[in-house]
């Protein structure tokens, strides 16, 4: 802290605040995509078509075991080769959404597996269609046990957004890097980014546990 300049820190704060907004926006949009796509992947893995189940299963494994950074590059650079031009934001959202949808599909899968067999049978006995069965019986009961996993990945997405800086999305790390190379000072921007991350992710984790507990109580679970 010998060289810390408060004036400089104050001067760059507004830019970092704007970047924090972008980071939160990226995390929120990525999470929204992941929530929807993840559910689709989870249900597809339970379909009676063996081929589909197998392909989706392998796809999820593949995405989960390769680096998000590489997937971001892949989506950003490979599109133009085939005439599809995506903006950095667009490709970033697709990459993060896709990556985390695979993690969320596992969370949903666990939740769906925890629904007692009698519920499935009852839905069939009532002559429900597949869509009705999932929408009215299975998913409402699967969500509560999936809640904690879903919350963890929200914080996880937030912490992975810095990777979007590599394709030029103006989130926190990208902005800190830019400030650093403009002023030849890296101490303040990078330290402040670290503090901003802590200041958001720690309370967020606490808040998620609180909401989770409340939802579970409301649904009469524990």
């Amino acid at each position, binding site marked *: 802290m*010998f*060289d810390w300049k408060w004036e400089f820190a104050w001067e760059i704060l507004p830019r970092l605040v704007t970047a924090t907004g972008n980071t939160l926006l990226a995390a929120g949009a990525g999470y929204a995509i992941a929530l929807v796509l993840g559910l689709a992947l989870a249900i597809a893995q339970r379909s009676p078509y063996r081929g589909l189940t197998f392909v989706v299963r392998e796809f999820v*494994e*593949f995405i*989960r*075991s*390769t*680096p*998000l*950074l*590489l*997937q971001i*590059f*892949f989506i950003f*650079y*490979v599109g*133009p*080769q*085939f005439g599809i031009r995506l903006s950095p934001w667009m490709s970033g959202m697709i990459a993060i959404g896709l990556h985390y949808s695979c993690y969320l599909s596992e969370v949903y899968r666990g939740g769906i597996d925890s629904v007692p067999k009698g519920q499935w049978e009852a839905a069939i006995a009532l002559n429900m269609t597949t869509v009705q069965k999932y929408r009215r019986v299975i998913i409402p009961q699967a969500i509560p046990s999936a809640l904690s996993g879903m919350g963890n990945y929200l914080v996880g997405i937030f*912490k*992975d*957004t*810095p*990777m979007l*800086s*590599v394709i030029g999305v103006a989130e*926190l*790390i990208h902005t*800190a*890097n830019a400030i*650093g190379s403009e002023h030849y000072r*890296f*101490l303040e921007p*990078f*330290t402040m*980014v*670290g503090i901003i*991350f*802590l200041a958001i*992710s*720690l309370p967020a*984790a606490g808040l998620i546990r609180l909401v989770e507990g409340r939802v579970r109580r409301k649904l009469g679970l524990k």
Partner: protein
Amino acid sequence: MNIFDFVIQYWPRLLAGSGMTVAQFFLAAILGVTIALMMGLMKLSSNKLIRGSAVTYIEIFRGTSLLVQLYWIFFVLPLFGVTIDKFTAGYVAVGMNIGAYGAELVRGGILSVPKGQWEAALAINMSPAQRMQRIILPQALVNMLPPWGNLMIELLKGTALVSLISVADLMFETKQINSSTFLSAQAFGAALVIYYILARFMVTPFMRWLEGYMARKMGRA
């Protein structure tokens, strides 16, 4: 150019990059496991100061992202007079990050050892160090190995970030090849497959083998 021609032409660089990725992986894994054991044990200490420092470490490294930690270690630490070359900065950042996640697994594993084991060790007059080393830790290790398998995959994926401080790993080589040839689909596609092979056919089977080996050693198989 199809992907096979691509691999035939560029395999030396892909191989060199993969070698660097594997080196980063091993060094980060050793550091990560060591930190995880240390912090996990410290978090269970009855001394407030020791417990507090472990909690602080874990929360800082789990609360900020790996990329922030990597840049901080590489760009900011030199300002305090600690200059680390990029190779070391890479695996140190990844290892310290994974260590914080692993500490929670270690803590959970130790707490999962039945109470009777603790009491039995006490009854035969073992010192706390003997008890931990001979009775508790071996059983805790077996219990916590399955989640470590996932963490090791996360570790492998985490090493891709060291390319951003120019460590010449697989990710870095791929980016270089891409910017000189513009063969994006082939370059990034090949790298994706290599990472997948490393994760699915090397890391995961090794962790499975280790689980079985440890279980046999403990007479549980």
